[in-house]
């Protein structure tokens, strides 16, 4: 196997925590602080990996297995998503379905691990998590269907390699709608404002943070790394859309994809600094249904 084929997953594995750092630095800049170092997530991961663990007596193997199964699923998902024009390792017709469902597997085991603790805090987070993700999945799959119809292929890598500047000139409005829908799905799945607040630690206002309250040590490191990878993987979908550079040279395409990821991270930081979290659950469900509607409108427009 050539090195080129491994470039995409390697960049994901190595660079995904940097995204978290960029988002945090952007938010700090908006708040007038100097903020954490860019590489802080790496230090966090290292610190957690060096610690021991504390388990609750209520929990069973589901709790101990949840973070591992979740991380393994996201790792497999990483091999499916292209970085702009740089093709993914695993490519086949219909890989977008496998991608969405692997994220679903991660989510199910996170929810089960949360319910295993027998605490009502984790129950709150789990209940909200399943509600929002049930509404976000149709938006994701419909948005990807619009992209598939536009490019005529069913494989993520082929779809994204055909999203050049030409495609934007031809079907710009529809692609803009898909970007809108995917952005909302991105914010919802990665627990960002306006759906969830990753910096608060009040149980009544959290979704993802409260589900991992009882994890510690290497388990928490796996969860943190899995979250960074999920950020990268969903961000690649957006980055490939907003930076339509397709030269055919894998290094140039990969570089353009990285620029796109940087743009996405900065955009998330800007959104987080300028908005407050929406009221749970009516306004968030309204937002997610709106994303689904945007994707449906994009699809309907591409049908004529």
């Amino acid at each position: 196997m050539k090195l080129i084929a491994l470039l995409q997953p390697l960049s994901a594995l190595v660079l995904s925590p940097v995204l978290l750092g960029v988002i945090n630095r952007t938010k700090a800049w908006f708040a007038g602080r100097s903020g954490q170092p860019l590489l802080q997530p790496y230090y966090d991961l290292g610190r957690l990996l060096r610690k021991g663990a504390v388990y609750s007596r209520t929990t069973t193997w589901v709790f101990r297995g949840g973070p591992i199964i979740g991380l393994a699923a996201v790792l497999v998902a990483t091999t499916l998503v292209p970085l702009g024009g740089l093709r993914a390792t695993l490519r086949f017709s219909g890989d977008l379905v496998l991608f969405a469902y692997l994220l679903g597997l991660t989510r199910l085991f996170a929810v089960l691990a949360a319910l295993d603790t027998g605490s009502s805090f984790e129950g709150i987070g789990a209940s909200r998590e399943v509600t929002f993700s049930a509404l976000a999945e149709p938006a994701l799959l419909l948005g990807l269907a619009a992209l598939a119809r536009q490019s005529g292929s069913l494989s993520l890598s082929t779809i994204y390699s055909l999203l050049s500047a030409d495609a934007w000139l031809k079907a710009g409005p529809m692609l803009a709608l898909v970007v809108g829908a995917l952005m909302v799905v991105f914010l919802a799945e990665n627990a960002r404002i306006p759906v969830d607040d990753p910096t608060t630690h009040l149980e009544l206002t959290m979704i993802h943070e409260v589900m991992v309250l009882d994890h510690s040590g290497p388990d928490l490191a796996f969860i943190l790394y899995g979250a960074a990878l999920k950020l990268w993987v969903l961000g690649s979908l957006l980055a490939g859309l907003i930076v339509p550079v397709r030269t055919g040279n894998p290094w140039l395409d990969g570089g353009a994809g990285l620029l796109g990821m940087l743009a996405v991270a900065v955009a998330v930081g800007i959104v987080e600094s300028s908005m407050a979290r929406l009221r749970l659950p009516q306004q968030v469900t309204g937002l997610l249904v709106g994303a689904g509607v945007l994707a449906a409108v994009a699809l309907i427009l591409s049908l004529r």
Partner: protein
Amino acid sequence: MFLLLFAVGILVLSGLAALWRPRLGIGGLVTACVIGLVSPVRVLAGGAGESLRLAWNVPYGAFFVQLDALSAFFLIPIFGLSALTAIYGDEYLAAWRGKNSLGASWFFFNLLVASMVMVVVARNAILFLTAWELMALTSFFLVTFEDETESVRDAGWTYLVASHLGTAFLLAMFILLGRQSGSLDFNRFAPVNAGALFLLAVVGFGTKAGFMPFHVWLPEAHPAAPSHVSALMSGVMIKMGIYGLLRTLMFLGPPPLWWGWLLVAIGLSSGVLGVLFALAQHDLKRLLAYHSVENIGIIALGLGVGLLGISSGSMPLAVLGFAGALLHVVNHALFKGLLFLGAGAVIHATGTQEIEHLGGLSKRMPWTAATFLIGAVAISGLPPLNGFVSEFLIYLGSYAGAVHNDAPVAIPLLGVIAGLALIGGLAAACFAKAFGIVFLGEPRHDRMAQAREPGLMMRLPMALLAAGCVLIGLLAPFVVKVLPPVLAELTRLSVADGLADAVRPLTLIVFGSAGFIVLVGGLLCLRCVLLAGRAVETTVTWDCGYGRPTPRMQYTASSFAQPLMELFAPVVRTRRKFVAPTGIFPQASSLATETPDMAREAVFRPLFAGIGWTLGRLRWLQQGRIQLYVLYIALTLLVLLIWKLA
């Protein structure tokens, strides 16, 4: 053919023997199932079909049975699941020994399996309807096993009425078909007025399968029946409706576009509404029954996709849609059977099926919990298990069709994609609730303390079904190779390489699944290595400083589902009975929720009330005097005489 009929004979004989000794019935059934599996496997592996036709002295009837690929495909889950549930049921029913008649129950069980086999191989309408009716009657007696309970009797009655209403439509359909061709043999049917026939078939077979809104008997009958019977009914018997619909499609000729639209609409409503009502339930078996409705909806979606493919002449669409639907038939038999058997183990151990009273059972019943988890992950359609494979085939067909076709075909396919995504998300939510509240956390009731793992005879079928789920998921490309003969019969196209564009994705999915399992193993080792020599302690769950947390403070099942239920409140219409504490100090209070079935409340209750009112107006006909009745008879005869002679 003779091997198959021999197996049916053993079933009937051992059923009769069960009246004397129940164990004989079970033994005979398992033997018959093993013998019976030989012929279908041979046919599916590429053998030729067989047929047998004996004349009967019933007018228009004939003992015409045939074993082709479609019948063989449906026979495999029939025999497989029947054997496993019988083994399970032996130990499960032990609690009722002496109280209810076990022998009668096993008699009817064997007859049920025999009638299902006959339904699948019958090729004459009289034979088919006889077997269909026998299936309904035997399952009615099986459902009302605990007939001392009034709710069980009511459920049985609902089931019987619904079943016969559906059969009435089937009768009408067969009469119409027979009138045109002059014979009631399936291979002589000539379809005229196919649209009306299709509608009759959808209603008639849909009642048995559980399409919305004809599903109202499912949530009543399945919880009332003993768990092994629920498993068999949900896993196999409702698929007889799907089989009937497929067989009818085979002799109705080329389908117009609206048939596909109709099935997609039925699939969407059954799937989404089924899973919503499942989320609202807090009776474990009722929850599983609504999930059967949801999965039948998914199968209907696959059938709709396939029909759209045939109507529009797009072979990949037709092949993938039907392949997904057929594979989901087998998959659902596996994981729904597993889930019902698991629920039965829980009920057997704790004596309750109320989810809000269960909890923490994973520590006391680890094997049951593990197999139930595999069933839950499979039914949510998540990789790497079998549910994902069948849903992937339907997705692949829908995406391929939506990308390459025009609006009349693309729009329902987009609905299929959005619908499947929503159904998948809601199903995962519902099973997170079911598994999480029942097996995880702390016990919510004292009864949980006496829960123990069930015996080997109950655990073995569950383990085998779980293994089946995992194997079909991991061996997907090979499993899919079984389907072409069946698909060729259904679509009348040569599908030798029709599934080729599905094999490569499935192979890579299996590759990804293997990678996933390797990664799980690797991460486990990594964690072991990291934690070796470090402090690993246990403590209580983080309780935010509360002094005395109790298990009742855990999240309840209703609370877990509440955000979703609130969102869909106009559809689900849960009724709440809330007794609030009065005054300033804490007091006893209660909250009860009940979710009646929407179709039953909105459609059938008013309908039956209306019929009852109308018939009540005719009550004056029944005066109670014999002279009047004799007058009625004489008048009728007179009218008939005049009519015939004039």
